[in-house]
């Protein structure tokens, strides 16, 4: 069967009433967490993992993907109206979007963000559907050493290639890898780093780590900054619609954003935040209205919003075809697959085509739902922003601890919640990124297994790792992704320092 047939079959699955309900719950929750500051899609999926334990596998995964997509839509609302991004991929949107809202053009800004997200989500999901079978074919020739090289590349791009410091990214990653070593070694059954504590034998739960670091760590950090009046919510003036000129200026930006976002998401090259940043840079260079940039240019909202949605869809390519998560949300979704005994990868397309294609097709459905949720119903979501901060964070924490309390309320697990939460706070305080810890915890054991398998096959010969061309190229890319940004930063730092010096004169 070709992709079309599979996709049609998937649509049949996606239109089952229960699946539609799961998708609707997912996109609604996703939009809500996207709108609310301090809680993102990664945390939400982590919270829901324990709750969905007894539910249907396909439905739960459709819900998780809906949350991921919805988070990308909802984040723009907060960026535009509040100037505080609801999640990291919408930081760029705040630059132009908030200026537009201040100038009384909040309606068109929200409209171009929502429609751009829709266009990008639709195109990128179709690209995912048509690209995935090819990557699966490629993945079939992958052996342990290729997988190991791929994971090394993912480690580097998640931790060191982007962000302000390679050192801090690597520290985060290796803390995650160190935590990943806790528990029973899967190849020999040896106990590692458990120190005689039986609860540690199973290793550290991804959900516990994610919830503690994202929810508790974030809450501690925000609380420690002291009471903050914050900028008020800007009312939407006029209607949420665009003029002919807005359309004319937006559509190219949407398509460019999609073209930038999807490849970045699908290669292990960083997540949606990088894509939106690059799209913004592209729009600023290509615009015919350079004077408007920084003062509310609609392209600066349309492009990045399209890019972050396209990147979210792109992230699903390595996740579904290779089992390789490249963002924190994807890493936790991988934990979701594993919870249902499913291992994403080429085999999944053969063993559970209905599930995979149902999931992909339901993303198309989710996109339509999200357009409805985010255009006509936008005013309802803005009400969420009026929840007072104390109540919001109180509620977030109660929900955040719910999963751990429900599944494994052992004193050890609860103590880990507090310890990792404090660690998440300290890491935020000292500018260490959180996502590499989560990705390291999930990918660490997989990378170790692939490495040891590869070395078993070669009988301990380490040169085997670079003897296959694919593995060698991937490792080379990883080295480039590690070294080039370091050089760029070393040079850029000089410039930045001189600028600071100039500003102080």
């Amino acid at each position: 069967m070709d992709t079309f047939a599979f996709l049609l079959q998937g649509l049949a699955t996606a239109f089952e009433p229960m699946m539609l309900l799961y998708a609707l719950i997912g996109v609604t929750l996703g939009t809500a967490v996207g709108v609310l500051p301090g809680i993102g899609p990664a945390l939400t999926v982590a919270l829901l993992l324990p709750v969905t334990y007894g539910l249907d596998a396909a439905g739960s995964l459709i819900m998780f993907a809906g949350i991921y997509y919805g988070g990308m839509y909802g984040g723009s609302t907060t960026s535009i109206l509040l100037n505080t991004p609801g999640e990291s991929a919408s930081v760029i949107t705040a630059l132009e979007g908030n200026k537009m809202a201040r100038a009384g053009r909040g309606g068109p800004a929200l409209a171009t963000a929502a429609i751009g997200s829709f266009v990008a989500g639709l195109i990128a999901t179709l690209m995912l559907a048509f690209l995935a079978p090819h990557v699966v074919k490629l993945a079939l020739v992958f052996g342990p050493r290729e997988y190991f090289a791929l994971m090394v590349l993912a480690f580097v791009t998640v931790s060191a290639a982007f962000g302000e410091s390679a050192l801090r990214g690597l520290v985060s990653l290796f803390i995650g890898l160190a935590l990943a070593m806790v528990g029973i070694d899967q190849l020999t059954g040896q106990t590692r780093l458990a120190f005689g504590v039986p609860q540690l034998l199973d290793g550290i739960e991804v959900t516990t780590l994610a919830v503690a670091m994202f929810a508790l760590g974030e809450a501690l950090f925000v609380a420690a900054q002291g009471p903050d009046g914050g900028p008020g919510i800007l009312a939407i003036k006029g209607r949420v619609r665009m003029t002919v000129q807005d359309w004319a200026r937006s559509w190219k930006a949407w398509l460019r954003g999609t073209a930038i976002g999807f490849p970045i998401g699908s290669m292990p090259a960083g997540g949606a935040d990088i894509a939106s940043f690059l799209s913004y840079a592209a729009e600023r260079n290509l615009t015919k209205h350079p004077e408007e940039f920084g003062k509310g240019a609609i392209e600066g909202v349309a492009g990045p919003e399209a890019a972050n949605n396209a990147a979210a869809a792109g992230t699903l390519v390595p996740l579904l075809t290779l089992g390789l998560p490249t963002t924190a949300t994807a890493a936790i979704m991988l934990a979701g697959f594993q919870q249902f005994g499913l291992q994403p990868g080429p085999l999944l397309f053969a063993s559970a085509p209905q599930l995979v294609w149902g999931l992909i097709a339901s993303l198309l459905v989710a996109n339509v739902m999200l357009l409805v949720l985010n255009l006509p119903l936008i005013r309802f979501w803005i009400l969420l922003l009026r929840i007072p901060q104390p109540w919001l964070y109180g509620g977030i924490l109660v929900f955040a601890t719910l999963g751990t309390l429900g599944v494994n309320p052992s004193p050890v697990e609860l103590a880990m919640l507090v310890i990792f939460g404090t660690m998440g706070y300290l890491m935020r305080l000292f500018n260490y990124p959180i996502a590499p810890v989560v990705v390291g915890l999930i990918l660490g054991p997989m990378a170790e297994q692939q490495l040891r398998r590869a070395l078993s096959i070669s009988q301990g010969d380490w040169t085997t790792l670079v003897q296959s061309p694919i593995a060698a190229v991937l490792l080379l890319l990883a080295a480039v992704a590690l070294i080039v940004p370091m050089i760029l930063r070393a040079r850029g730092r000089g410039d930045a320092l001189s600028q600071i010096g100039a500003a102080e004169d």
Partner: protein
Amino acid sequence: MTPQDTMERRPDRAAVAIAVFLIGLGILLIWDGSRIPSKAGYSGVGAGDVPRLIGAVLVFLGLATGVQGWRNPGPRRPRQQPVPLLWLLGGMIVMVASIHSVGFVIGSTILFTCAAAAFGERRFVRAILSGIGLGLFIYLVFDVLLQLNLPAGPIEMLIFGR
């Protein structure tokens, strides 16, 4: 110790503390990895070797962090408010310590109220009442309806009988 003092010297101290932590963690991994009998099999890499490798990298990263913090201290960090931190962390710890005896509803009420207080809420009666309301609602939905096994205490016994 005045605030100014700590502000001036904090970046260096923080980097040194992080460096010590990383080196300590690295040594822990190396020690634990060495404790495991080496049965490397065909691969030449046994259960203890990867932890030792990660430990070595952590020691190196710790040294690099220390050196970098020594050479150019990082930017000043925003002043941290200790009172909200204590509220939040305290609420978390009390909840974690007492949840098995007081049950989910009271535990989450404690957490909710302390978290709200950390973010400046001073109307405690309202906060406690809404905490109880939220706790009951979550218990009803997740324990009674979705069969997630939440810790039960006196209140849960009284209302839901389990």
